[in-house]
C-alpha cells in the first residue's frame, strides 16, 4: 500500500505530530509525504531526511499558504490518484482538511486512530475516550487521522527520500486567510512536552496562572495546560485547553492543579504516564486516576513545591 502523509509544519520546522503519523503510515506500507505551502523547499529537504520516507511531494504555491482546506483538499485528491491511503496527524489543520478530502473521494474517514490492526481495521476512541471502537473500512482508499500520542515518533534523520515538485491545483477562490494570533512561548509545545503543568478554575484569574503555575512549569521545563473552565474564564488562551475538545496529550508527567477531573478533561490526558493531582477536595474525581495525589490548598502547596525543587 502507498500512503501519503500530511506534513504539519510552520513554514520552517516540521512538527513532531508529523513523525507520529509517519510511524502509523509505515505500518500500512510505503511512506510518501506531502509538503504544501509557500516557500517550503527547506521543509521538503528536512522531510526527505525522516527515517523510512520514500518520496516527498512538494506543492509550493501561495494558494497553499496557511493550509486553507478549500485549496489543499483538491491537491490531496489529485495525489490520491496514485496513493491508497491519506494519513494525517490529528492537528487542527489536518482535522480541517482530511474530511474534505474524504468527501471528495467518497470515502468515510477514520478519525483519530489509536492502532492499526490490519490494512483495513483500526481502533479509535469514541465517547470522550470511554469506548474504544474497532472499525473496519470497506472503502478502497483510506483517509485516516492519527492520534499522535498513540504512535512513537519516527526519527528525524536517517531517511533518504527524493523530493518531487507537484503542480499546483490553484486557488479555488472560496476562502482567504485574514490573520492569526498565535501564542508565543519559550516553553515546550503542549502536544510534545515531557512534563505538563495544568491549571483549572481554582486558579481564579490569569495573574495567578502567571505567579503560581508558570514558575513551577519553568522549573520543570514543562508546558502549561489548562481545563476548559480556565480557558472559558479567560485566564489563558484557547490553545492551552486539554481535553475531549481541546488538545490530547500524553506526557511522562502531567500535573493537574485545581482541576476537578471531569470526563471531558480526562479524555485529553488520561494516557499520561504519571498523573499527579493537587486539589483541596479529597473526593475530587481527578484522584481516582492520579498516581500521586496531594490534598492541599494550591495557593500554599504550589509555591512551596516550586521553592523546594
Amino acid at each position, binding site marked *: 500500500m502507498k500512503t501519503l502523509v500530511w506534513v504539519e509544519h510552520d513554514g520552517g520546522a516540521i512538527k513532531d505530530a508529523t513523525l507520529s503519523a509517519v510511524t502509523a503510515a509505515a505500518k500500512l506500507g510505503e511512506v510518501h509525504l506531502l509538503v504544501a505551502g509557500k516557500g517550503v523547499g527547506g521543509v521538503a529537504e528536512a522531510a526527505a531526511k525522516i527515517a523510512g520516507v520514500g518520496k516527498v511531494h512538494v506543492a509550493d504555491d501561495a494558494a497553499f499558504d496557511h493550509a486553507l482546506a478549500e485549496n489543499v*483538499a483538491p491537491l490531496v485528491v489529485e495525489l490520491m490518484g496514485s496513493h491508497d491511503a491519506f494519513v494525517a496527524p490529528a492537528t487542527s489543520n489536518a482535522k480541517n482538511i482530511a*474530511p474534505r478530502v474524504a*468527501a471528495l473521494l467518497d470515502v468515510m474517514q477514520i478519525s483519530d486512530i489509536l492502532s492499526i490492526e490490519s490494512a483495513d481495521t483500526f481502533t479509535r476512541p*469514541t465517547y470522550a475516550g470511554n469506548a474504544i471502537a474497532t472499525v473496519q473500512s470497506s472503502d478502497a482508499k483510506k483517509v485516516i487521522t492519527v492520534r499522535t500520542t498513540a504512535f512513537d515518533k519516527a526519527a528525524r534523520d536517517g531517511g533518504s527520500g527524493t523530493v518531487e515538485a507537484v503542480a499546483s491545483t490553484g486557488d479555488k477562490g472560496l476562502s482567504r486567510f485574514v490573520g492569526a494570533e498565535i501564542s508565543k512561548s519559550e516553553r515546550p509545545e503542549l502536544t510534545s512536552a515531557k512534563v505538563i503543568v495544568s491549571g483549572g478554575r481554582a486558579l481564579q484569574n490569569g495573574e495567578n496562572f502567571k505567579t503560581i503555575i508558570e514558575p513551577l512549569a519553568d522549573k520543570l521545563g514543562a508546558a502549561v495546560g489548562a481545563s476548559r473552565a480556565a480557558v472559558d474564564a479567560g485566564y489563558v488562551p484557547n490553545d492551552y485547553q486539554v481535553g475531549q475538545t481541546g488538545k490530547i496529550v500524553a506526557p511522562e508527567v502531567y500535573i493537574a492543579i485545581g482541576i476537578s477531573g471531569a470526563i471531558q478533561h480526562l479524555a485529553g490526558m488520561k494516557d499520561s504516564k504519571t*498523573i*499527579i493531582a493537587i486539589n483541596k477536595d479529597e473526593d475530587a474525581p481527578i484522584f481516582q486516576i492520579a498516581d500521586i495525589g496531594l490534598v*492541599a490548598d494550591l495557593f500554599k502547596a504550589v509555591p512551596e513545591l516550586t521553592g*523546594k525543587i
Partner: protein
Amino acid sequence: MKILVPVKRVIDYNVKPRVKADGTGVDLSNVKMSMNPFDEIAVEEAIRLKEKGVASEIVAVSIGPAKAQETLRTALAMGADRAILIQTDDEVEPLGVAKLLAKVADEEAPGLVILGKQAIDDDSNQTGQMLAALLGWGQGTFASKVEVDGDTVNVTREVDGGLETVALNTPAIVTTDLRLNEPRYASLPNIMKAKSKPLATKAPADYGVDVAPRLKTLSVAEPPKRVAGAKVADVDELVAKLKALGVVA
C-alpha cells in the same frame, strides 16, 4: 439569508458512557439524551444572527430516530423557525449525514450552514467539512467568532497555535467551537410555542441518497482502567516522588 442548523441527539454530556457487556456498543437504554452541546452553540449563533437582522429564517435538521424530534423541538424552543427530521433507525455515518444535508441545502438554499465541530458521542469531527466539500463551499471550522459582512463571512477559528481568521464567500459552512457563545435556555412559553412550529418528517430514501455505512464496528471495548495511586501527606513527600520519577534533580 436562511440558516440551516443540523442538530444531533446524543448522550447527555453529564452521563458517564458505559460499554455494553457484549462489546457491541455503548449502552444507551435509559440514559439521558440531549442535543449535542456544540449544536446548541450552533442554534444560538443562528438566533443571534437573526436577532441582528442578518438571518431571516432558521431551519433545524436532524437525522436519527423518531426521538430526535425532541432535539428538534429544543431547537425550535430556543428560536429556530421550523424543523426537518430525516427519520432512520439505521446507523448513518458523517459521510451519509453530509450527503443528506447537501440535498437539504440544495432544496433550502441557505446562506450559511452552522454545525457543531464534533458530536460528543462518535467524536468524528467530520460532518461540516464533508458537507462543505460536497457543496463546493468554503468552510470556517472550530469557530469562536462569526461576522457576516455582505457576501462574506469572517470566521475566527481556534487552531493549535491560537486563533486564525479566514474570510469565506457565502454560502459557506461554519462549525462551532465551545467559546463561540453561551447558548440560552428555552423559556417555558417558548417551549409551549415550539410545539406548534412546523416539523416535517422525511426518510433518507426521499433524498435518493445511499447512506449505507462504510465502516463496520467490529467491537467496542472499555479503555484500560487507571487505578488510583497513593496520596502523599505533604509537599516534601511530593518532591521526593518527583525526584524518584527523575523530573527534578
